[in-house]
């Protein structure tokens, strides 16, 4: 039988243009059944009884009793069961699932399952969830053995905290004592949806010898395999993950999503089972962390920064997922790319009764940069300084020490800032214009490995776990291999990753793959040239932070960029129009120029959505805009003038660039508004918020006359 998925070779014409590309949702097996999930209508409730007696005989149901004995999972905290067994923790938490002969039969069957609940008190805000007396989501908490739990986790389950990350650098009290001016503000950023065009899709089957095979749109095949092994009590080699190309992911297709549910159904049915999510279910699966961030920044009168204290509350929802990692990166991005002698950061990852929040393009930096860079403009205004000059005075340069204690190399923040300021016409006048700069870490530590094999027909095959979600990593790796092997790119094949074949890779996240795999490839090709048959290479980046002090190596490779925006505001209606958006990012050496441009343009456009209108709205934990009519994403006719620089340097190494331009965009637009005296603390910058802030300013000016 031909294996589904197939080989996605880039023959001419491109399968994306002919429509012949096969995504995870297109994989099919004979005799397969279709799944549908039954979800909790309560934000927090005890699950008393799941009654499947009304189901037709040919429908297979998975209920809490079927999964009670299976292992707990979670990529960083072991806090989740395959279904909500004792308590459902958010509106949408899966409590049962069915498999039937068609998607329609499955949907109809799901409605026949009756569940009795006892409603419990719920909490939705991260700051409230940490208060005494708040409902506790996970009173007993264990840290995951998955290698995605790669840093020291500091859970405090008695106040709903699954991780408390700290930076302790210098002497914060002394720092504020030395400060001649202190600004302080609290910011909020909302939850957002990734909206991959292709929904989550997965298919599982059990082989006659008891192996589990899963075809799934995933960025993390090996992390997924580890958690599935724990759930089903199998050795990792007993599980095979095949990862076809995805119709977009942006962080959403990571770790265990529905693979355990379809595997459970498939085992019970004795047949393959496939699930493709309905669009509204995407909002019940994984979103971006809403965050509250308090910033206190102290400086000398000449603008020299001396002290910064930041507290982040990252709302991770019902299950931690990789929220501890997001809170950590939010924490170490929040001081910003500046020389500050005294830094104190507390970043909390907090459980609430919302759907889980996890990896989202930007990974905590979007929230951190909004707070950090808006505060820089508050300080500039108080000091009467040009916001660009204030930044250039303090920005990190080569050889500086960051607040994590690491020495910074290959630093280009000032170049990025100067580039965006020039393109936005900063010197011609700053009214209606704003700037922001970003530093963002890459997954550290991590390991990438790759095998290159010579085929009999003179072509080569690359075996590599890197996932393709549109970012162009497969093409970039093929181009690098072709360049080193001295053959046209068409002679290098990149089969769909299959964990039975490809060597280990940490995961396809944090804009690391072209950089890390590119380095691993050099050794693999060298070996292959020696023996003529096969080469193996790996790349390891080592580092990590002390979780209690935040000291160490946060990242071996810093993503660096800046954004500038020019805006017009209609002060009668609050309507904000972005006229021009420019970003400059440090790109090192670019492998595939059109793909690099597309990644940067896509980051900017996603940043524009986050700045202007993307926000998941809730009413008592119930999402009120879980569809693309009420939740808007940018369309072609929403765009301002968009320009950018990808800054290359002769002799530089490859640099990740898949998400660098997103985080500074909202902050640059917010600062452009602030240049007009309109101070908005919370994203997105809706007409209502702009109008309210604009009226607040008018009252202040009237009062001060």
């Amino acid at each position: 039988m031909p294996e589904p998925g197939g080989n996605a070779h880039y023959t001419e014409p491109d399968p994306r243009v002919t429509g012949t590309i096969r995504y995870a949702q297109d994989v099919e097996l004979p005799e397969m059944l279709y799944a549908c999930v039954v979800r909790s209508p309560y934000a927090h409730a005890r699950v008393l009884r799941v009654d499947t007696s009304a189901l037709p005989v040919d429908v297979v149901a998975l209920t809490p009793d079927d999964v009670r004995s299976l292992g707990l999972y979670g990529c960083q905290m072991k806090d989740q069961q395959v279904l909500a067994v004792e308590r459902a923790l958010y509106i949408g938490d899966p409590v049962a699932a069915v498999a039937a002969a068609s998607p329609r039969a499955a949907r109809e069957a799901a409605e026949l399952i009756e569940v009795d609940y006892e409603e419990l008190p719920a909490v939705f805000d991260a700051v409230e969830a940490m208060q005494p007396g708040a409902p506790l989501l996970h009173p007993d908490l264990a840290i995951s053995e998955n290698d995605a739990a790669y840093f020291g986790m500091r859970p405090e389950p008695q106040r709903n905290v699954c991780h408390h990350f700290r930076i302790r650098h210098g002497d914060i009290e002394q720092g504020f004592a030395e400060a001649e001016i202190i600004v302080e503000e609290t910011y909020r950023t909302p939850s957002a949806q990734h909206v991959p065009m292709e929904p989550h899709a997965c298919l599982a089957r059990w082989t006659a010898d008891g192996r589990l095979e899963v075809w799934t749109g995933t960025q993390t095949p090996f992390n997924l395999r580890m958690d599935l092994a724990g759930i089903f009590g199998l050795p990792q080699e007993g599980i095979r993950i095949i990862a076809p190309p995805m119709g977009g992911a942006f962080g959403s297709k990571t770790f265990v999503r529905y693979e355990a549910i379809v595997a459970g159904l498939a085992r019970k049915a004795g047949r393959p089972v496939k699930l493709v999510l309905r669009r509204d279910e995407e909002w019940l699966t994984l979103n971006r962390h809403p965050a509250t961030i308090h910033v206190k920044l102290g400086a000398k009168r000449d603008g020299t920064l001396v002290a910064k204290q930041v507290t982040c509350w990252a709302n991770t929802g019902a299950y931690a997922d990789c929220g501890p990692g997001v809170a950590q990166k939010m924490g170490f991005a929040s001081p910003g790319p500046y020389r500050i002698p005294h830094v104190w950061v507390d970043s909390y990852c907090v459980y609430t009764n919302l759907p889980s929040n996890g990896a989202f393009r930007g990974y905590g930096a979007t929230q951190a940069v909004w707070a950090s860079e808006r505060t820089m403009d508050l300080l500039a205004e108080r000091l009467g300084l040009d916001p660009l000059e204030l930044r250039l005075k303090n920005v990190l340069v080569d050889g500086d020490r960051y607040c994590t204690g690491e020495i910074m190399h290959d630093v280009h923040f000032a170049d990025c800032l100067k580039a965006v300021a020039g393109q936005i016409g900063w010197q011609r006048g700053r009214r209606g214009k704003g700037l922001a700069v970003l530093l963002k870490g890459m997954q550290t530590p991590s390991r990438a490995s790759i095998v290159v094999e010579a085929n009999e027909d003179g072509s080569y095959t690359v075996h590599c776990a890197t996932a393709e979600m549109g970012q162009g990593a497969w093409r970039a790796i093929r181009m690098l291999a072709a360049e080193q092997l001295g053959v046209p790119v068409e002679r290098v094949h990149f089969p769909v990753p299959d964990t039975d074949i490809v060597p280990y890779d940490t995961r396809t996240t944090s804009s690391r793959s072209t950089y890390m795999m590119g380095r691993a490839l050099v050794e693999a090709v060298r070996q292959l040239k020696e023996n003529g048959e096969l080469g193996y290479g790996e790349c390891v980046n080592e580092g990590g932070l002390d979780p209690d002090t935040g000291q160490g190596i946060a990242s071996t490779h810093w993503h660096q960029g800046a954004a500038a925006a020019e805006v017009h505001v209609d002060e009668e209606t609050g309507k904000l129009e972005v006229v021009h958006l420019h970003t400059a990012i440090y790109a090192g050496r670019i492998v595939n120029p059109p793909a690099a441009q597309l990644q940067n343009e896509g980051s900017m456009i996603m940043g524009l959505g986050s700045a202007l209108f993307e926000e998941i709205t809730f009413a008592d934990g119930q999402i009120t805009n879980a569809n693309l009519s009420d939740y808007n994403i940018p369309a072609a006719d929403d765009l301002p003038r968009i320009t950018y620089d990808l800054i290359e340097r002769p002799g530089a190494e490859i640099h990740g660039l898949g998400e660098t331009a997103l985080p500074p965009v909202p902050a640059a637009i917010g600062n452009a508004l602030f240049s007009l005296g309109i101070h908005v603390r919370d994203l997105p910058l809706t007409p209502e918020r702009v109008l309210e802030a604009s009226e607040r300013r008018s009252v202040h000016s009237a009062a001060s006359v």
Partner: protein
Amino acid sequence: MAAMEIHFTLNGQPVAVQAEPDEMLLEVLRRELGLRSVRETCGLGICGACTALLNGQPISTCILLAPLAEGCEITTVEGLGGHHPVQRAFEEVQAFQCGYCTPGMILTIKALLEEEPEPDEETIRRALGGNLCRCGCYLKIVQAAQRAAALLAEERRPQPGPGAAPVS
């Protein structure tokens, strides 16, 4: 509900398929006819990932009841063959990332250029208002539309006859 038989022309070939009366054309194209270029994202007729041409006009197949396609001409990207000028333009410009929205974009631009062979940028952007791309390829998609217009104009130009002077 009893399934019914529906007849229409798909990519130039007459087809007869079984469908439930309340089924959308998208489900029928995927399940009964095996087409994978029509894809569901929003399910509301907003995003354009399920676009097909119905008698030459772009429609959202996720909200068109299958029986309403009776007697119509339906075109999907599979019917363009792979070397249509709009497809070639998308390749040249590399106007895609994940490629999920690409077939819908190509069909929408094909229909636009048939009605308006030389659209300005604003017209293109407006025409694409119902086709979402979460990867954010819009700048290059607009360029691809412009390039496709140029390729189609070249095709329309009368071919030089045997006696024509060589172009210098």
